[in-house]
């Protein structure tokens, strides 16, 4: 069972209280972009075996979107943080680096 903490209202809940929204930190491409860029944005997924950044919505709570850093092998949640950012906060990055030596944040495309 996955337990997440909403960074807005501070409520801890299990996964049925939240709705998953897929990969986070996508760089969006719209009208005017090339076919390849649009295809990459819309369809190509990182789908990592390991650290994954994703969007969640506190559907049965405050209703707000937030981000979570989670491990897809162990289901460990490294942390959740508000969505108004282009990369995860430093403390979460440090926590992941400590757990997984060699891991580094990269620019998501």
């Amino acid at each position, binding site marked *: 069972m996955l337990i997440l903490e909403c960074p807005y209202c501070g409520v801890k809940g299990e996964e049925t209280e939240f709705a998953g929204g897929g990969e986070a930190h996508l760089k969006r491409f719209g009208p005017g972009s090339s076919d390849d860029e649009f295809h990459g944005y819309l*369809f190509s*997924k990182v789908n990592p075996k390991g650290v994954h950044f*994703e969007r969640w919505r506190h559907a049965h709570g405050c209703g707000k979107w937030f981000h979570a850093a989670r491990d897809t092998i162990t289901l460990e949640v490294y942390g959740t943080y508000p969505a108004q950012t282009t990369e995860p906060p430093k403390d979460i990055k440090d926590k992941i680096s400590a757990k997984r030596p060699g891991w580094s944040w990269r620019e998501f495309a």
Partner: protein
Amino acid sequence: MKRYSAFAIAREALSYHMGWEKAWHSPEPRKRYDAIIIGAGGHGLATAYYLGKNHGIKNIAILEKGWLGGGNTGRNTTIIRSNYLQDSSAAMYEKSRSLYETLSQDLNYNVMFSPRGVIMLAQTEHEVRGYKRTAQANALQGVQTEFITPERVREIVPIINLEGPRYPVLGGLWQARGGTARHDAVAWGFARACSAMGMDVIQKCEVTGVRTENGKVKGVSTNRGDIDCDKLGIVVAGHSGHVADMAGFRLPIESVALQALVSEPIKPCMDVVVMANTVHGYMSQSDKGEMVIGGGADNYNNYTQRGSFHHIEETVRALCETFPMIQRLKMLRQWGGIVDMTGDRSPILSKTPLENCFINCGWGTGGFKATPGSGWGFAELMATGYSPLTDEFSLDRFKEGRFIDESVAAGVAH
């Protein structure tokens, strides 16, 4: 390899059944093969089998990280049907279903194919319309299905509760020639047939890297050394994204856990497969008497082969409404498998950005039924560069907007 037959049983009885040889060899990997298939599940082994049988390519290694058929091949609910809406899907799944009919004879291995019939319940007006449309489409595609009345549903499934409080049964899509097969035996049978053709089925051999040169695959690195190949086939289901990453390209795929569970064995009570997509549960009875139940998929990326508990609760709740007699049943086992979901819920059998590398993935929640057909088409694609079966399932269909949208026809349950 000695053939299995009634005569063989008599012959082996003379030596107290101590003389049976192993069903397949476990050789050390060689340095080079004409083709390497990553993944010795049903689809990978079927691909190798038809590469040998239909195209004469027999210098093949099939590499498996764990044990043979230990992934989704051994974790599904063994349902075989071909009542799909779109022409390209119906062609693929019907090819597969028809191959299943003679698979035991072809492989000389009893896969226990049981064409007992599959019924998909229509429990809303939308579903009634949808299934009637599917039945019409199937008639044009040459797939034998029919839309049946609730009375007929009760005749076929006496234990069903038609007057569900929320979702009464309004009819059903009936495919009499669908059914089940023993999933382990499908993997074992293909492995034995591959081994008999001189192919190397290598277990506990994990691919750790794909070596490329000038846009071509040169070979793979494994925990048992480097192996070179002329052609590479990636058939790794839930780990497709992971292996594609090694090869340097991305896929329109996300991996999630899908669950199934099985009850204690009871006396025969239901001799068909029943799927209820609105309330989301599907069930059949195995030859041992266990009720085999398919559950839901998680809605977040996941490689844990476990799945969340609330899906079990939802599925079991739905089935208790539909089949009141199973309410007191105890569940024996529950497990999960990692399924590779594409955006349009249809598979990908395709060339890749690498010239001699091919990928067969994206079967999502419904790959078992397609095992022989997928192998047949993918082998043709790998051998000749084109297959009418797989043409529509190419990787560039996403870019070009040629989706094969089966999510409505198939629902979540497969």
